[in-house]
């Protein structure tokens, strides 16, 4: 059974959709459950200024990504990288033990989005050097 807060987030999730001006995109697929977490982040001056998501997951997965994208906004890139599952859980209120793997899955999408951003930066700087 899901908490009232989680169900509210599922009913009306924040930050759904594509972020056209995204600086980095991370797509994480859970190999075991085949849930897919797609995170878009926009970074300016080493700070996440915007975030959005798409997700192929159930009620809890949608709520987790909604909370995650809210938390990412206005976080420095370094702090975003350091986000932990317990912080997500705290913000979410509660999540049954059997669904907590979703927190880790969601955080993996952050890792991949940041990696994507950093790769793009590297590419650009190489281009400039040439």
């Amino acid at each position, binding site marked *: 059974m899901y908490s009232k807060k989680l169900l509210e987030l599922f009913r009306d999730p924040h930050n759904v959709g594509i972020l056209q001006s995204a600086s980095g995109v991370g797509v994480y697929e859970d190999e075991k459950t*085949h849930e897919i977490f797609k995170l878009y982040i926009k970074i300016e001056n080493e700070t996440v200024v915007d975030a959005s998501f*798409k997700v192929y*997951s*159930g*009620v809890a997965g949608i709520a987790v990504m909604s909370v995650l994208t809210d938390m990412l906004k206005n976080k420095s890139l370094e702090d975003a990288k350091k986000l932990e599952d317990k912080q997500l859980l705290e913000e979410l209120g509660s999540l049954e033990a059997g669904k907590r793997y979703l927190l880790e899955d969601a955080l993996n999408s952050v890792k991949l989005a940041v990696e994507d951003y950093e790769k793009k930066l590297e590419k650009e700087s190489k281009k400039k050097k040439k």
Partner: protein
Amino acid sequence: MEETKKRVVYLDTANATYVNREVLQEMMPTFNSCYGNPDSIHSVGRTARELVEIAKRRIAMAISAEPREIYFTSGVAEANNWAILGLARANKSKGNHVIVSKVEDKSILLACKQLEKEGFEVSYIGCDENGVVSLAQLMGSIKQNTILVSVNVANGEVGTIQNLNAIARTVKEKDIIFHCDASWALGNMPLDVKSIPIDAMTLASDNIYGPKGVAGLYLKKSVEIESFILGEGGKRPDHMNVPAVVGFGKAVELATKEIMVSSHKTKLVRDYLYKSIKEKIENVSLNGHQYQRIANNLNITIDCVDAEALMYMLDEEGICASVCGTRLEPSETLIAMKRTPEQIYSSIRFTVARNVTREDVDYVVEKMVDMVKKLREISPLRKSSKEAK
């Protein structure tokens, strides 16, 4: 101020049904006037025994069995567990090989895992993409030491009806015990243990408008079974749940009496539901056999839509449907039918209750259109026009 009653459309009879009014009426006296233990020899006990015998006669008549061949259990899981474990253990001296299909109820598959721990060998036979169990594979799996075969009459998840007659005859030709789980078939199609050689058959109550907490096992009188519950009083000891048994008997009588009319009526509503969904929502496909299926079952895959999320959205509008399996424990049936993971997690089951009307279906589909649109917008599997560019 009177609160407005929320509309409920019940499309989950595979999990439970309401109790029919006539069934409830038969059950009522057993709570306070005919409350005896049917094993007691005094008058109150004898009255209860007579009610149990009536229930046995009703169930026996519905499947062409003898009343003494009907046993009551606490539910389908116990009946299936008992059949698999009890029949295999009692016949171990003849062999230790058991065959079941991969599209059986969990209570059968888990009982088989238990048998494997006890030294039995179990062969799990597959099915085609419609969920029809392979007769060829079954025939090829039979060995000298095969003692038991169990195949469902109809699959509870996707509704596919198996080729019961051919399977039963193939098995019996080799003098092997044949059990079938008829939990989802009873009340949806005629069952006859006289014309089809069946040794044991599981019968459910709570999806034929009977009470919960009871189920039945038909057991041919010549077949040996080991008791599953240890205690005083026959093959299935313990104090009988007389109210539930009485209700079960009445529910079977009603379900089989009006079977052709009620199943045809249900089928029309079910078909209308599928047709309406297909008309209004794109990329929807059927799971299970198109024609060889029980009347109330509609299991569909809605591409790119997480079925659990859809089920919760439907629930918020009073629409009760179900999803078979979870992300961590996906449906064994859909896996056996070679569905992809995306298809499995996008599959939802509707099992139509008798009181569902075409107007209810219109309401369901109208709500579903918006829900599917919303979930597809969230899904990364669905490429939007912006992304496609």
